[in-house]
C-alpha cells in the first residue's frame, strides 16, 4: 500500500512539474523550449545509461551496441503509431485526446521494448558465451548490422529516415519511464538475482563453481538492458518526431558508455549523474562545438588514468552523505 502511494506521489509530482515547465498552469514558470528539450533528452539519456549500466557495470559484460537496441525500439514503436495510430484512435474514441495519446505511446513503448528485448535475446545467446574484448566487438558488430538492416527496410523510410511520427512523448512520460527504469534496475541489483550478476562481474569462474548459471543470468540481464534501451528509443522517436539511422551509429553507443564511465560503472546514481553531466557539458560547450569532443575524449583517457572506477565507482550517491542524512538506503552492493 505504501509503495502504491509513493508511486502515485511520483506520478503526481511529475505531472505537476510538467505542467509548470510547459506553463499550462501559470505562464510565469514556463522555461524556454530549448531548455525543455535539453531536459527531455537528458531524461532519455538517463534511461539509456541506467540500462547499459545493468549489463556493463553490474554484470561486467562490456557491450558497445546499445544504440542498435535503441534503434529497434524507436523504429518498432514509430511504425506502430504511424501506420496504426488512426485506427487505434478510432477504437479509443471514448477517451479525451491526452488519454488517447498516452495509450498510443504506451502501446508503442510496449512493442518497442518487446522487440528490443527479443533482439537482445537473439544477440545475447550466442555472444554472451564470449568474454571481454570479444563480446565488446561482437555487440558492436550487431549494433552496426541492426543499423544497416533498418537502413534497408523501405517500410520505415530506409535512407530517407522516418518522419511524421506523432509527438506523443513529453517531459512527463520521459521522466516517468526514467523513474521506472531506475526502479527496475535498482530492484534487480538488490535482489538475489542481482547478487548473481555481481558475482559474475567479480569472478565468472568462481560464480560458476558456486552453481550460478552464468550464461542464463547474463542473457537475462542483457534482455532487460536491451528492452529498456528499446523504451528509450520509443520515447526518443515520439519526442523528436523523426528517426534516422544516423542517430544510432557506433558513436551513440560510445556516448552512452562515456556517460556510465564518467558516473561510475556499477552505480545507478552514478549513471544518472553521468547522463546529466554529459548532456549538460555537451549543451554548455555548444559554442565550442569543434573542441567539445576533443575535450571529452581527453577527459575520458585522463579519467581512466587517474580514476578508472569513474566518479562514484561502485558506490551510490546517497552512501556518500553523512549517515544521518541517508534515507532508506540499503548497504551498497558488494564492491570489488
Amino acid at each position, binding site marked *: 500500500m505504501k509503495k502504491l502511494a509513493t508511486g502515485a506521489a511520483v506520478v503526481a509530482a511529475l505531472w505537476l512539474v510538467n505542467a509548470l515547465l510547459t506553463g499550462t498552469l501559470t505562464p510565469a514558470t514556463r522555461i524556454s523550449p530549448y531548455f525543455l528539450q535539453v531536459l527531455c533528452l537528458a531524461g532519455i539519456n538517463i534511461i539509456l545509461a541506467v540500462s547499459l549500466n545493468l549489463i556493463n557495470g553490474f554484470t*561486467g559484460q*562490456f557491450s558497445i551496441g546499445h544504440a542498435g537496441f535503441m534503434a529497434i525500439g524507436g523504429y518498432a514503436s514509430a511504425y506502430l503509431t504511424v501506420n496504426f495510430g488512426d485506427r487505434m484512435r478510432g477504437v479509443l474514441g471514448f477517451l479525451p485526446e491526452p488519454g488517447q495519446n498516452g495509450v498510443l505511446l504506451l502501446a508503442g513503448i510496449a512493442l518497442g521494448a518487446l522487440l528490443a528485448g527479443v533482439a537482445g535475446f537473439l544477440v545475447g545467446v*550466442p*555472444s554472451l558465451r*564470449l568474454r*571481454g*574484448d*570479444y563480446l*565488446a*566487438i*561482437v555487440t*558492436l*558488430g*550487431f549494433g*552496426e*548490422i541492426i543499423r*544497416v*538492416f533498418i*537502413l*534497408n527496410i523501405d517500410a520505415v523510410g530506409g535512407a530517407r529516415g522516418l518522419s511524421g511520427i506523432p509527438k506523443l512523448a513529453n517531459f512527463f512520460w520521459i521522466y516517468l519511464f526514467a523513474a521506472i527504469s531506475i526502479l527496475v534496475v535498482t530492484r534487480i541489483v538488490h535482489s538475489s538475482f542481482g547478487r548473481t550478476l555481481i558475482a559474475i562481474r567479480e569472478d565468472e*569462474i568462481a560464480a560458476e563453481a558456486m552453481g550460478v548459471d552464468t550464461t542464463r543470468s547474463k542473457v537475462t540481464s542483457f534482455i532487460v538492458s536491451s528492452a529498456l534501451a528499446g523504451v528509450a528509443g520509443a520515447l526518443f522517436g515520439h519526442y523528436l518526431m523523426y528517426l534516422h539511422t544516423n542517430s544510432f551509429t*557506433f558513436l551513440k553507443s*560510445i556516448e552512452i*558508455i562515456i556517460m556510465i*564511465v564518467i558516473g561510475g*560503472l556499477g552505480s545507478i546514481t552514478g549513471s544518472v549523474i553521468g547522463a546529466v553531466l554529459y548532456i549538460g557539458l555537451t549543451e554548455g560547450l555548444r559554442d565550442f562545438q*569543434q*573542441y567539445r*569532443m*576533443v575535450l*571529452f*575524449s*581527453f577527459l*575520458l*583517457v585522463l579519467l*581512466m*588514468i587517474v580514476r*578508472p572506477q569513474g566518479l562514484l565507482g561502485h558506490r551510490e550517491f546517497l552512501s556518500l552523505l553523512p549517515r544521518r542524512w541517508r534515507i532508506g538506503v540499503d548497504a551498497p552492493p558488494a564492491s570489488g
Partner: protein
Amino acid sequence: MSTFLQQLVNGLSLGSIYALIALGYTMVYGVLRLINFAHGDVYMLGAFAGYYLSRRLQGSEPSLVSALIVMAGSMLTCAVIGILIERFAYRPVRRASRLTLLITAIGVSLFIENGAQLVFGPDPKFFPSLAPRADFHMGPVRVTSEQLTVIVVSLLLMLALRFFILKTRTGKAMRAVSFSLDAAKLMGISTDGIIAVTFALGSALAAAAGVLIGMQIPKIDPLMGIVYGLKAFVAAVLGGIGNIPGAVLGGLLIGVSEVMVVGYLSSTYRDAIAFGILILVLLLRPQGILGRVQKEKV
C-alpha cells in the same frame, strides 16, 4: 568468369590494405592483450602525413623516388605517433583491468578523430598522384598500376615483417613478450622497449596502408579510419588474433568477400558483411582460422 577474376583482383588489392592494418592489431594484441581501437586512426594519420608530404614534394614530377620518400616519411611519422600513444595513454593503465584499457583505447581513438577534424578540417582532401600510372591487361582482367603497387608493396612489407620477427634479436624478444610478458621480463628483456617497438612497427604498417589507399582511392578524411579499422580488426580476429600469418589471411578474405558482395549483391550491405563474418567466426571457431585455443587457468 572474367568478372569474377576482375573482382578477385580488386578484392586482393583491398584485402592487402586490410591485412596491413590487421597486422598492427594482431601484434599489439599479442603483446598487451589489448584491442587498440586507435589503430584505425593511426592509419588515417598515415594517409594525412602522406598527403602533406606529397604536397611538399609537388614541384617534382611524380616518380618512384618521391613516392618512396612519401611512404617512408609517413611510416616514420606514424611510428613516432604510435610510440607516443603507447607511452602516454596505455602505459599508465597497463596494470589496470582490461576494461579500463579498452575504454582508454576508445578514448584515444575519439581524441585522434576529433583532433584531426580540428587540425586538418572536416572536409575530405584529395591525395595527389605519386607515381606515373598505367593499366595492364591480362586477358579480360584489367589491373591498374595502383592495384599492382598496393599488392606488391604490401607483400614486401609483410615479408620484411616476417624476417624481422623470425630472424632478429628484437623479433625474438617480441615473440617472448607475446608468449608471456612476466617471464620475458624475468629473462632480462626490456618489455617496455619491446612494447614500444611493437607499436612503432604496427603503426608504420598502418601508415603504409594509409598512403597506399591514398594512391588508390584519393579521397581522404579524418574519419576514414573508423570503418577500415573495424574491418581490419575483424580480419585479425578471423585469422586468429595474435597470429601474424592469420592477420594477412583474414585481411585478404575480408577484402575479397566484401568486393564480391558489392559486385554480386548490393553495395548497401558492404559494411555489414565484415561483421556478419565476424559473428559467424566467433560462434563457430572463436580462436579464428589459424589461432590456437587457449586454455583458461583459474
